[in-house]
């Protein structure tokens, strides 16, 4: 039997460490509109007839943000980009594209149609990422809603129900039912004093009941929320059987399944129509002529009044002198590039660890998930491929692109495999959910971010004691790297944020640096 949760335990859970009283107080003190929710208004000085040269190292979204903003104010910008393309980790793959994973180069063979694309890096934009969204608006990037959680997608775990996939809705409805029953039991234990008034207690109990769809006597006996076993439209619906709590507890996928709409992915999510790189294209529409491609930075020397940069392009080493330099080259690559940075800066650069994100995708010969009532969303499994995303875009078209693997933290498992091994691993994993997966898909692509040329990682990991937050030393190393060298060289990118792996962080780091430089330029020109 499941050990019953006592009321006090339950109340303590609610209030984390401080107990319910603290929880109640915290509730009233909550600031419901945190400052980060509003887009920072950049107010940069226009240079007028003055001249300033800017070197932007790396055409990531942060670098392009700088180019776009400074271009408007009359600065002379040059973006040096080592790759054949801008965007860095904003990578949309379409027909014919080169996937520049070193040691595993591929060309994307998807059919040549507008909806046949795959966002191999950034894919989702939460509605709270105001700064990024405001650029989408300014750059006329059309957005559509992205379906993240979908209750008709699947949950599959070899340890649960003999490995049989169940619908997300069956998993979540039953899980919530059982959890609510436990909570209701804890609430009705009269022996414990409660800090609730009678009416608060009633409200809470009512919520618990509706949270789990409990019966009048606060028991979970199954729910129509999971859909019908049969009928439901022209005939009365027949309720599905309950799945035993114990069976559900065989799987730990609840952490992903029940949390899919929480935290960063809690707000409404969006994606640009046609691919995430429409944002990059939007920036390039304004500053494209300032970008040098296949121009690999080889040296960065900060001087008293500027920065000298060297780069290789077409087999020739070039030099570029600028008044200010904004650099989004990943720190782990910058360590190997010639520079004259101060030693505390170098120490901070070396401290940052690189992440191991991995993604894969398949072209589906037909949109078989739509025949199974699944439109968009994620199927979760406890396989190494972890996730299967059904595309939100292209509904009811002939084909679509499925995300066939997404491992954010432990991507090395697939990264170290050969291309064939990777693909076989994903197919075998998804056959557990869709038995004929192998026949349904073709033209796979895989992306080990740890090996992508000029990137070699996603994303910057500052904190080494994961889950316990940043140490004081880490905070101070971070601030060292955020501060400009000599007022001339600024590191930017999501690596210079405390919330890496989001475009919003990259954009905000660029805006932070711009404001800083702007203040200096105002003094220079005063």
């Amino acid at each position: 039997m499941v050990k019953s949760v006592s009321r006090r335990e339950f109340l303590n859970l609610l209030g984390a460490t401080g107990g319910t009283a603290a929880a109640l107080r915290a509730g009233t003190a909550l600031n419901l509109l945190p400052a980060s929710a509003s887009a920072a208004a950049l107010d940069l000085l226009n240079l007028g007839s003055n001249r300033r040269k800017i070197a932007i190292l790396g055409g990531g979204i942060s670098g392009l943000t700088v180019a776009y903003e400074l271009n408007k104010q009359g600065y002379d910008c040059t973006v040096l980009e080592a790759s054949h393309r801008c965007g860095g980790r904003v990578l949309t793959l379409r027909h014919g594209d080169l996937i520049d994973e070193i040691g595993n180069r591929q060309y994307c063979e998807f059919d040549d149609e507008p909806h046949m694309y795959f966002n191999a890096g950034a894919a989702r934009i939460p509605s709270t990422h105001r700064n990024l969204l405001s650029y989408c608006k300014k750059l006329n990037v059309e957005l559509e809603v992205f379906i993240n959680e979908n209750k008709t997608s699947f949950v599959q775990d070899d340890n649960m129900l003999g490995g049989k996939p169940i619908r997300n809705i069956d998993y979540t409805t039953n899980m919530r039912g059982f959890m609510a029953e436990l909570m209701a039991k804890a609430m009705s234990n009269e022996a414990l004093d409660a800090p609730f008034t009678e009416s608060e207690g009633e409200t809470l109990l009512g919520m618990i009941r509706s949270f789990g769809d409990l019966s009048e006597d606060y028991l979970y006996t199954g729910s129509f929320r999971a859909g019908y076993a049969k009928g439901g439209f022209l005939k009365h619906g027949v309720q599905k059987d309950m799945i035993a709590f114990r069976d559900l507890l065989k799987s730990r996928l609840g952490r992903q399944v029940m949390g899919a709409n929480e935290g960063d992915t809690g707000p409404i999510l969006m994606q640009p129509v046609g691919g995430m790189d429409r944002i990059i294209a939007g920036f390039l529409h304004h500053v494209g002529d300032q970008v040098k491609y296949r121009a690999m930075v080889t040296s960065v020397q900060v001087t008293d009044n500027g920065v000298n940069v060297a780069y290789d392009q077409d087999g020739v080493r070039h030099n570029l002198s600028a008044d200010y330099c904004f650099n989004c080259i990943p720190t782990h690559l910058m360590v190997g590039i010639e520079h004259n940075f101060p030693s505390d800066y170098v120490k901070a650069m070396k401290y940052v660890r690189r992440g191991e994100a991995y993604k894969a995708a398949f072209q589906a010969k037909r949109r078989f998930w739509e025949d199974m009532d699944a439109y968009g969303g994620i199927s979760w499994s406890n396989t190494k491929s972890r996730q299967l995303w059904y595309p939100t875009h292209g509904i009811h078209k002939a084909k679509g692109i499925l995300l066939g693997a997404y491992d954010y933290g432990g991507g090395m498992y697939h990264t170290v495999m050969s291309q064939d091994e990777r693909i076989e691993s994903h197919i075998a994993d998804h056959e557990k959910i869709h038995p004929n997966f192998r026949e349904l898909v073709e033209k796979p692509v895989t992306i080990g971010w740890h090996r992508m040329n000029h990137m070699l990682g996603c994303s910057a990991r500052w904190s080494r004691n994961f889950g316990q937050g940043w140490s004081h030393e880490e905070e101070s190393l971070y601030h060292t790297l955020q501060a400009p060298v000599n007022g001339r060289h600024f590191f930017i990118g999501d690596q210079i944020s405390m919330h890496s792996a989001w475009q919003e962080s990259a954009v905000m780091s660029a805006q932070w640096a711009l404001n800083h430089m702007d203040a200096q330029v105002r003094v220079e020109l005063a």
Partner: protein
Amino acid sequence: MQISVPLKAFHKIWLLGIRVFALVAASYLGLSALAVAAEKESYNDRYCTTCHGTDGRGNEGIEAPRLAGMEEWYLRRQLENFRAGIRGYHPMDTAGIAMRPMAKLTDESITDIVDWVGGWDYEPTEITIEGNAQTGESLYGVCATCHGIDAKGNAAIGAPSLAGQNDWYLATQLINFIAGHRGRHEDDVYGQQMAAMVDTLTDESDVRDVVAYINSLEPR
């Protein structure tokens, strides 16, 4: 202001070469292939500096060591060893595993790369490891037989130069040899010779000391 300095003339000829080759190959395969060749982004095998740093001077951030100034025969052997899977195969050898797929190269490409790397100027590397160089000197005694008194290597024996290599890399290699992550493959003739020589290094402090001594030698 932009000044342009030509790199090795060879590099330019090579670049021209691949373009001509692409054209010839495309016309050989017919017009449709030409269209495809024109559409698709090209790539080549000269990606080493992404990891090994500017002009192959090493990048601690990737744990990829200095290549500039490396003996041609040693560079070629290591590329062939990685390609054949006799180095970088042990599951604990994460850096070796990272390098191994980078050596999926044709013989021609290896020759091209060895030439290319040969054109990089040698620059002494930064010292990052502290140790007791005096203790290190006596530990180095046995090493000198093969790597030379000045640690500048010995082609006849097949032992590479150690002086001037990134010290953190020397340390990981010694630890790899000690732990059996390198030099145990039955086809790794040279690695085996080296692996047999690490018995005198009993712990990490010995490794640090001997590396500190190598650091104290004149790099080149």
